[in-house]
């Protein structure tokens, strides 16, 4: 597909400057273009416009963009867009459905859809998975390849790739690159790619196109010149790109010890050095006093205590760790995905409880006489004590932001820090302001002091996230994948900040995949778990998924993409819904013990049909029984007095009549829950959505929108937990009284909303770029009733009728709408 721009400009509403101005461009069919340019030059705007997902009621547009002679929105399905974040590139919970989604949106006939799906999965090397494989269990690189398969199922002529490998670990990077190149080779599709790690892509591209800030094209040349033209290399480096063979660290002032290792640029696939010796006693220069001692430590993501939702405590991810963290040490924690690196870091940081063994802070870390009263385990510290001793930088800077300006954000840590055992602030207001001013300068954020942290650029956010943590002057800095997805300039800035921290006697612990990062800080390496790293370029054997190693998301069991194989699980979703509706309707009509009793007994008797074990069911429903007791109590107090008064509280009474009524309401509340728990736990959300849209004819756009959002539930719950941890790390945990807790919850909720909307916006782009939301669509899987669904509906009707009849016959019938 050929791409042409003629004097094309785009100005976002409310912006003075156009994002792209006067662009004239001609890209030949099959050409592979690497698109570069300073940040803000409109690279993403251009890709989004080509994918026809750029909407703005009030934007100002001039000129023309043409794909094979037609406007992008007339070429639906001809251009496929892949974005950076793998999570928002997946739409549905099973890989077959996800690939079929795009073909359905283009109204491809059902028979052809599954052919296309199989072909596309084969092209990206995911054919080893079943079509029903849960998309949530894929690694980041596999998710991006799945996204590519979804795009290929549209048979596009243009692949638009917006930093497709920036958020992947090294092995994922090569998998995705190879899959993209193979697909382009096979289909002859044109590629337009934005990416800042040039060494991965540059050799394979035909053309380098550098956009000019404020409009136009600065340069167009063969991509090979990236390797040969020194001026070009310099220019690209200045834009923050990772130029092959160019070391961003060389721009930094020399650092003691740096000359010890060769200062070569290390490719991201360099195998980790074996440093088993890092276990136990730490070798290496200048070992300071111990700060943290771990003995026989076991760590796990889920609380070692049984929670209210899951009766089983989570199993530890890592066990039997002996570790000494010393003052002045720089330690990089490396290892395969899902090995438990981040969990270890969060545990060492006092944000997760240890599963077993001991973790103890030394007097050195606690801080002399003032800190002597602190518990040994940092997890037991108040967040006000934690913030002045251990600072944690999360992978996603936004998780840590809690204030509305950069200045307040930097002041917060110092303000929250308290003298141990007291409510006295550690710093005076004057000291706080001094620290803030100092940090603003150090971070180069003075100009942006009053800006909203969420509006900063990626690099600025990264610097601010480190700054917020330095605010209270912690001895130990712990960072989770700090260089993930960062450009070369941000990388160098981060290294330089951390070197300052080390130079001032600080300690750094980081979870990382990044060999450059380890080299930049001369870090010792602690490798976690089995090596098991796939060689670059070879890709992973699809059968040997590492799914098993990945921590299960909360809510995962509820939204397991595995369908219930029980008799009830195989029935039509709408039939089940109708059955529950009939039963619920019968219960709602009356408040009496008998009808509720009938439904409760029937529900328990039907458990085998749903393949649910009674013990598991009881674990699941006991909170509702507790809720029913509360409902009974409420009514006993607040219902109209009738019969003998048992207790007179003055403002209200408890009477025989109100107790009877309360018991009936409690029983009914419990009875209403059971059928829906049984049915929902055997109903797959995708099947339900298929039924609602195809059989009940609810609007497909909304049903599918809700379904796609539902897939994010586990991810959102993960965000919720991380944001909670990040808040504790910032000194604003949800502790204390009712008011403090409610404020804490509100602030955490806001943080979640920000992430939810960011994710939703990206997901909407993904869905729309796969043809969603315009015109008629087809359905890859038909939803219809079969003869076997009749007993389900009849059964529901029967249980409802039985409940009503029994209540009427026993004389307890108590109609509510009188």
């Amino acid at each position, binding site marked *: 597909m050929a791409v042409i721009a003629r004097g094309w400009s785009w100005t976002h509403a409310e912006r003075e400057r156009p994002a792209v101005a006067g662009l004239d461009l001609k890209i030949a069919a099959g050409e592979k273009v690497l698109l570069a340019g300073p940040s803000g030059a409109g690279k993403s705007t251009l890709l989004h416009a080509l994918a026809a997902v750029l909407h703005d009621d009030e934007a100002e547009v001039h000129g023309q963009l043409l794909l094979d002679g037609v406007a992008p929105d007339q070429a639906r399905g001809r251009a496929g867009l892949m974005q950076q974040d793998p999570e928002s590139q997946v739409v549905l919970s099973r890989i077959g459905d996800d690939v079929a989604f795009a073909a359905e949106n283009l109204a491809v006939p059902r028979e052809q859809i599954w052919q296309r799906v199989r072909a596309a999965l084969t092209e990206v090397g995911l054919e080893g998975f079943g079509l029903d494989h849960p998309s949530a269990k894929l690694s980041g690189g596999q998710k991006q390849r799945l996204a590519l398969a979804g795009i290929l199922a549209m048979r596009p002529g243009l692949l638009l790739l917006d930093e497709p490998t920036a958020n992947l670990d090294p092995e994922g990077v090569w998998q995705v690159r190879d899959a993209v190149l193979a697909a382009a080779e096979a289909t002859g599709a044109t590629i337009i790619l934005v990416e800042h790690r040039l060494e991965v892509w540059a050799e394979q591209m035909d053309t380098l196109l550098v956009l000019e800030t404020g409009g136009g094209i600065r340069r167009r040349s063969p991509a090979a010149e990236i390797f040969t033209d020194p001026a070009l290399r310099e220019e690209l480096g200045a834009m923050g790109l990772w130029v092959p063979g160019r070391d961003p660290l060389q721009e930094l002032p020399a650092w003691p010890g740096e000359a010890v290792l060769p200062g070569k640029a290390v490719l991201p696939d360099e195998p980790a050095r074996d440093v088993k010796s890092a276990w136990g006693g730490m070798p290496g220069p200048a070992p300071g006093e111990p700060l943290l001692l771990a003995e026989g430590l076991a760590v796990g993501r889920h609380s070692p205590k049984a929670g209210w939702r899951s009766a089983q405590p989570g199993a530890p991810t890592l066990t039997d760790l002996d570790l000494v963290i010393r003052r002045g040490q720089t330690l990089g924690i490396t290892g395969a995905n899902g090995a438990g690196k981040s969990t270890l870091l969060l545990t060492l940081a006092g944000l997760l409880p240890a599963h077993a063994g001991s973790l103890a802070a030394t007097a050195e870390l606690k801080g002399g006489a003032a800190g002597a009263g602190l518990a040994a385990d940092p997890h037991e510290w108040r967040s006000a004590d934690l913030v002045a001793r251990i600072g944690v930088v999360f992978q996603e800077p936004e998780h840590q932001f809690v204030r509305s300006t950069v200045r307040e954000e930097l002041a917060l840590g110092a303000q929250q820090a308290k003298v141990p055992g007291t409510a006295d602030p550690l710093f005076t207001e004057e000291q706080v302001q001094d620290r803030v001013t100092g940090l603003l300068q150090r971070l180069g954020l003075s100009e942006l002091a009053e800006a909203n942290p969420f509006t900063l650029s990626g690099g600025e956010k990264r610097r601010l996230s480190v700054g917020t943590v330095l605010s209270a002057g912690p001895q130990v800095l712990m960072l989770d994948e700090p260089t993930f997805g960062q450009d070369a300039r941000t990388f160098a800035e981060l290294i330089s900040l951390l070197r300052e921290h080390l130079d001032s006697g600080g300690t750094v612990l980081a979870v990382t995949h990044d060999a450059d990062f380890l080299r930049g800080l001369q870090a010792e390496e602690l490798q976690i778990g089995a090596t098991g790293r796939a060689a670059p370029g070879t890709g992973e054997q699809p059968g040997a998924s590492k799914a098993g190693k990945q921590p299960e998301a909360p809510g995962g069991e509820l939204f397991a993409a595995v369908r219930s194989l029980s008799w009830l699980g195989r029935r039509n979703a709408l039939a089940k819904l109708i059955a529950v509706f009939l039963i619920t309707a019968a219960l709602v009509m009356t408040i009496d013990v008998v009808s509720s009793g009938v439904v409760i007994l029937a529900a328990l008797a039907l458990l085998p049909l749903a393949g649910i074990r009674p013990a598991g069911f009881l674990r699941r429903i006991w909170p509702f029984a507790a809720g029913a007791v509360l409902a009974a109590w409420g009514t006993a107090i607040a219902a109209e007095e009738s019969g003998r008064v048992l207790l007179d509280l003055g403002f*209200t009474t408890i009477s025989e009549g109100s107790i009877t009524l309360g018991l009936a309401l409690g029983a009914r509340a419990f009875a209403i829950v059971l059928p829906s728990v049984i049915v929902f736990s055997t109903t797959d959300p995708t099947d339900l959505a298929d039924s609602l849209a195809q059989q009940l004819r609810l609007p497909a756009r909304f049903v599918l929108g809700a379904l796609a959002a539902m897939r994010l539930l586990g991810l959102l719950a993960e965000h919720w937990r991380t944001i909670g941890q990040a808040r504790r790390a910032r000194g604003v945990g949800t502790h204390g009284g009712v008011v403090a807790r409610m404020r804490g919850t509100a602030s955490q909720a806001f943080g979640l909303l920000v992430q939810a909307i960011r994710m939703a916006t990206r997901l909407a782009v993904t869905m729309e770029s796969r043809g969603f939301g315009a015109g008629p669509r087809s359905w890859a899987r038909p939803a219809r009733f079969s003869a076997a669904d009749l007993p389900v509906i009849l059964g529901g009707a029967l249980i409802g009728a039985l409940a009503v009849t029994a209540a009427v016959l026993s004389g307890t019938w108590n109609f509510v709408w009188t």
Partner: protein
Amino acid sequence: MSSNNRAAPAGRGTGTHFPARSWRWSVSDIVVASVLAVASGVIFWGWNLSYHLVGNLFVLYPPVETLVHGMWLFPAVLGALVIRKPGAAIYCEMVAAAVSALLGSQWGLTVLSSGFMQGLGAELIFLAVAYRRFSLEFAMLAGAASGLTGGITYHWIVPMYAYAPTETIIHIACFAFSGAIIAGVLPWLATRGLAAASVLGPLASRRAHREPRLGLGRSHG
């Protein structure tokens, strides 16, 4: 108001004109509303943990428990304030209710009817002002209306309580009051915060943080 519409020719090179303001839901509207509703389900789940503590406050006199039940109404008003299209309040509240049903709700399938009715209350307020006003007092009104219709549902439409008349009135009044604060003021603050964080780019509410707090001013367009 800051909405200085550019009267420039619009269109992506095709000369297509974008309507100045459309009531049709875009894909972004649908997906953001859906994800907001699902996120609300997650917040309910987090809130439930805190509710163990808060709920105990009302054991002595349960009819005032609704003072904190506004927490279950916020998706309706938040959805309406963020999306600003007809049906947003009902849609968000119902999807949030459905998510809580999937996670296991103590109301079973009846959450759908209460979700609909709670959403309807808020929806009616924004309908009455033709989806053009989203300032604080309308947010509070919508929250209160949501509590009112929610209370009516609790007691008469799908009765879940059997309170005496005085207790019923207290129960519903507390629900409406709680709605005005927790599901009115808080979603309004959240929307402004989200707009200030500039995450509402593709949505009609992207300038919410620069609108006047109260009344007179028109929301947009």
